[in-house]
């Protein structure tokens, strides 16, 4: 089985979010970038398929050269090859079209993406990619088994879970559950050394066009101070929740 894992390069979850150039650009200053957490769960599941079922695992990112350390980290975790489509990621549609080209050229059976990236929270690349490839698609996937060309997946739905069966080629939008937190691998020295020698191919984009543009950003209005209520005066809390918040 040939697996392609899509890797989004995102600010670490603890990053302070600021904007520059008149609030039109994300301020990368002092920000540490990581593999998007949803993608890391998928990558780790891909490593399981590699170890147990002899799958090959490539990783791909659509982005400029500054995303390469993130791809190297994926190689250090154990991916075989990395591909970088050399163009800035502009919107979900453009990224999905660029990824579709890579997926088609490579003839992958399974494409694992994250249900959303934690920066723009678009939540659209996996579904668009699946449809562009005319492949089957399972979103918010929390469990995946593949036997031959048959796949069984569990999808998280609002308030529960759904078990689905389908066949390859398949694209999933993955998340935690594909593997557990404790299964995530921190690359060891050997992995890091080996990753330096693994291929990281830079390919030209097909020049897909975006259909949306993120023009401007705004930070939420600063929050007013918390109203502290004495623990011996819980009636006051109930009063506020009822009369002020109108929440009960």
């Amino acid at each position: 089985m040939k697996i392609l894992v899509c890797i989004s390069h995102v600010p670490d979850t603890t990053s302070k979010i600021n904007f520059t150039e008149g609030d039109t650009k994300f301020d990368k200053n002092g920000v540490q970038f990581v593999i998007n957490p949803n993608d890391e769960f998928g990558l780790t599941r891909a490593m399981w398929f590699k170890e147990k079922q002899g799958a090959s695992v490539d990783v791909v990112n659509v982005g400029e050269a500054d995303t390469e350390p993130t791809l190297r980290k994926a190689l250090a975790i154990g991916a075989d090859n990395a591909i970088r489509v050399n163009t800035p990621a502009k919107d979900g549609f453009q990224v999905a079209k660029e990824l579709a080209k890579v997926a088609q050229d490579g003839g992958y059976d399974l494409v694992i993406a994250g249900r959303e990236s934690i920066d723009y929270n678009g939540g659209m690349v996996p579904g668009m990619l699946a449809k562009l490839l005319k492949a089957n698609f399972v979103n918010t996937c929390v469990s995946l088994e593949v036997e031959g060309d048959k796949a069984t997946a569990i999808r998280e739905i609002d308030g529960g879970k759904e078990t689905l069966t389908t066949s390859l080629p398949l694209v999933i939008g993955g998340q935690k559950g594909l593997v557990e937190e404790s299964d995530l691998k921190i690359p060891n020295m050997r992995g890091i050394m080996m990753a330096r020698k693994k291929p990281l191919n830079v390919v030209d984009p097909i020049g897909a066009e975006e259909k949306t543009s993120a023009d401007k950003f705004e930070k939420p209005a600063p929050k007013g101070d918390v109203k502290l209520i004495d623990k011996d005066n819980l009636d006051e809390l109930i009063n506020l929740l009822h009369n002020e918040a109108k929440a009960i």
Partner: protein
Amino acid sequence: MSVLVYIESENGKFKKASYEAASYAKGVADQLGASVTAVTINAENNEVLGTYGVSKVLQVNNDQLSKFNADAYADVIAQAAKNEDAKVVVLGQTANDKYVAPIIAVNLEAGYASNVVALPESTSPFTVKRNAFTNKAFNFTTISSDVKIVGVAKNAYGVKENETSAAVEDFSPSLDASDFSVNVESVDKATDKVTIADAEIVVSGGRGLKGPENWDMIENLAETLGAATACSKPVSDMGWRPHSEHVGQTGKPVAANLYIAVGISGAIQHLAGINASKYKVVINNDPEAPFFKAADYGIVGDAFEVVPQLNEKLKEFKANNA
């Protein structure tokens, strides 16, 4: 020209989020001088959508669609959009909506903006405000394609009544085998519990509760309030609570009316995921806990004392205000 809105139903019934999507569609239609057409799948009582400004309903009744199927549902919605020559397609942001929207986008060659929190700032260019960076910022996105898809975030625009009379018509899209290549084998969903996605109130517990045996007080409080229960990430990682209750940046998002955090410190990854909730209450014995900076109301105190007392008082309040 019309604005098309997909109205989700479950077992034939609409949900609050569906009315919110309809209300939003009406708002956009008014900006554009257009009318709202809704498409529904195996739903009952379609006339009620008139209350929220829908003037036409395309009702699809088809046994093949009795279980949600993303490809087939997307196909139905895309065909309805073409049928109506809709330039704007509105959906909510339930798990199913998020599943179908990108498929529709490809079917209609349309740009899609998800997590949208307000009516368009302008309709030409078509610019919407949306949540980004997991609620740490807003982003203004312009959709430049001919057809535009908007996913409306839960509890952001609200339900707005706009009495209209809705003409209900049958709609029979053509489906083919490729729409059914992912099959639902089984659904596991508790029907007696409020889900985090639907809940108006969420009661959430953190590591401060010390162990799974202490969750009765969280469940009791949730029951009194008709709330869903949730937890912080370490609590689900340690197996005290199921993963389905994990909320935050890497768990489920919460956009409730009221979020009550008990024994949760308020780490940035936790707050990111719950910040879209309107009101936040924190109960924590450490006055320095970061959650106090994010909350509207705070109680510094021991959860083991405060929560049971609060529950008793709320029961009294509920009894008096029933």
